[in-house]
């Protein structure tokens, strides 16, 4: 009969109208990202052996680096590494080419910037202290200090919440301690925010505090463990 299809359509939309929604509220509710999701390209300077394979693999000249000869040996070392993200095709060719997993894609997909030159990510490695990596996102410079600090704090807190172990790894001596510290921070929000603030303001102090946290926890555990032993 004519009109049946119309009624069926009305029924379907009505059913969906009272049913569940499928959208998510994006900034509050983050989308679920698969493991292999290709977000922002990240460069882990410590692993780089300056082989240049990534720049050769890249189809669109996104990657470039400066290197210099290490005195007295054939080895090269990195001076700076630039990812010009605006030309990136997110094709994974550089990641596949890299022999040491220096390059990888993070899950950070919010890559838009207000200025074109902010898109460029430059990693500069000073010669003296290779441990203190300066990640210079160029666009951050002209911002007033206050907001910058706030942003840093927020970023650090987020990092701590998301991936605490990796973030605090440099604060303590070994992996085990890092794991303990991560556990503490995840449990206690106050400690987490304090640690985040300290890590930005004063690294040395943060390290001390971190060590203190870890030691206290270790002691507690010892006590707890001892009690358990006794009960056995």
């Amino acid at each position, binding site marked *: 009969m004519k009109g049946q299809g119309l009624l*069926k*359509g009305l029924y*379907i939309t009505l059913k969906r109208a009272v049913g569940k929604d499928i959208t998510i509220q994006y900034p509050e509710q983050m989308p679920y990202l698969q493991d292999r999701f290709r977000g922002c390209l990240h460069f882990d300077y410590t692993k780089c052996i300056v082989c240049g394979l990534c720049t050769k693999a890249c189809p669109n000249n996104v990657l470039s680096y400066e290197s210099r000869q290490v005195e007295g040996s054939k080895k090269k070392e990195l001076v700076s590494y630039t990812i010009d993200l605006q030309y990136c095709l997110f094709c994974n060719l550089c990641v596949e080419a890299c022999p040491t997993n220096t390059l990888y894609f993070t899950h950070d997909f919010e890559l838009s910037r207000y200025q074109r030159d902010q898109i460029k990510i430059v990693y500069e490695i000073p010669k003296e202290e290779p441990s203190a990596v300066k990640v210079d996102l160029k666009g951050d410079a002209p911002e007033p200090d206050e907001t910058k600090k706030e942003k840093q704090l927020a970023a650090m807190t987020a990092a701590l919440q998301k991936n605490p172990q990796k973030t605090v790894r440099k604060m303590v001596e070994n992996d085990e301690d890092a794991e303990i510290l991560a556990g503490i921070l995840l449990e206690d929000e106050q400690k987490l925010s304090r640690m985040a603030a300290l890590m930005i303001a004063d690294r040395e102090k943060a390290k001390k505090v971190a060590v203190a946290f870890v030691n206290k926890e270790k002691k507690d555990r010892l006590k707890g463990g001892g009690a358990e032993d006794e009960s056995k």
Partner: protein
Amino acid sequence: MLRTEQFTINIGPQHPSTHGGLHVEAVMDGEFIVDAIVHLGYVHRSVEKIAESRTYPQYVPYTSRLDYLASHLPTLGYCQAVEKMLGVAVPERAEYIRIIMAEFSRIASHLLFIGSCAIDLGATTGLIYCLRDRERIMDMFEMTSGQRLIASYMRIGGVSEDLPDTFIPAARSFIADFPEMIAEYDGLIIGNEILQARLKGVGRLNADDAIAYGVSGPNLRACGIDYDIRKAEPYGIYDRFDFTVPLAENGDSWDRLLVRMEEMQQSIHIIEQALNQLPEGEVKAKVPRIIKPAEGIEVYHRIESSKGELGYYIVADGGEKPYRLHVRAPSFINLMVLPMISKGGKLQDIIANIATLDPVLGESDR
């Protein structure tokens, strides 16, 4: 006799229903279309020239930007073309993964086709339902390659990574839910009498014209011509699967819609078989890091893309970059019949015709 003046009206390049940057200059007599002139090139990115400055592996990501709605298909075509030049055999598992990905791409593209067909005719809600289901395919692409839309997943000699553990359950659950989705589109979009009245008998293309104009893919099969490259000239391992080629008779917009609906079900059928037969093993053949096909080798490799016959004509000069690469884009050639089938119709018909020809301007303009 009273005579009215003809006037031209520019449908596009900025128009809600032109799928990107299509520009149709329609000569109108009131609401009737007297003639239509198609202007292309608004999305021209000179991919053929780019190919001449990229090495063979480097060009892979560019191919997925041709038909961005079914990005695995153009990549598959390119990789297979280069493999043909090199004589590389692809590992079994990779072949199967490629088929699965290609067919999912086809479904994703057809889902968007049905949705955009609905929205072009004014049924906004239909689009959202199709996008909702397409999203599940996009999630699967994200699982395997890390990218949702333009996944550069295939590589010369195989695929970039093996399937993750989560993929097969996701694919199986999609297949299980598919009949339900089809039922919903049938109820909301296909079964709607208004939509049927708008598509039936509109934009009729007869079989001889279709062949003469080089129309391919579902648009050709809607005219009743049984020609599917997956059957006629099987590439990859398509000869191992059992599927039928859906056909229609009239070649009008309605048939083009129906053929695609049926084609999705056949794709599901292929995926099911591929999942059942999926062997273990390597996913990438040993291919030298620097690919240099011998001088003078040239290949024309064509695949059945979701839009039609997608061909790559590659000429090698012995270097690591293609000497010449030409893409035979199905959308480009399918669009050629748009003026023919729209003449004499009404303004609303040309919108339906554009929608059912299913051009992708990224591919057509290259």
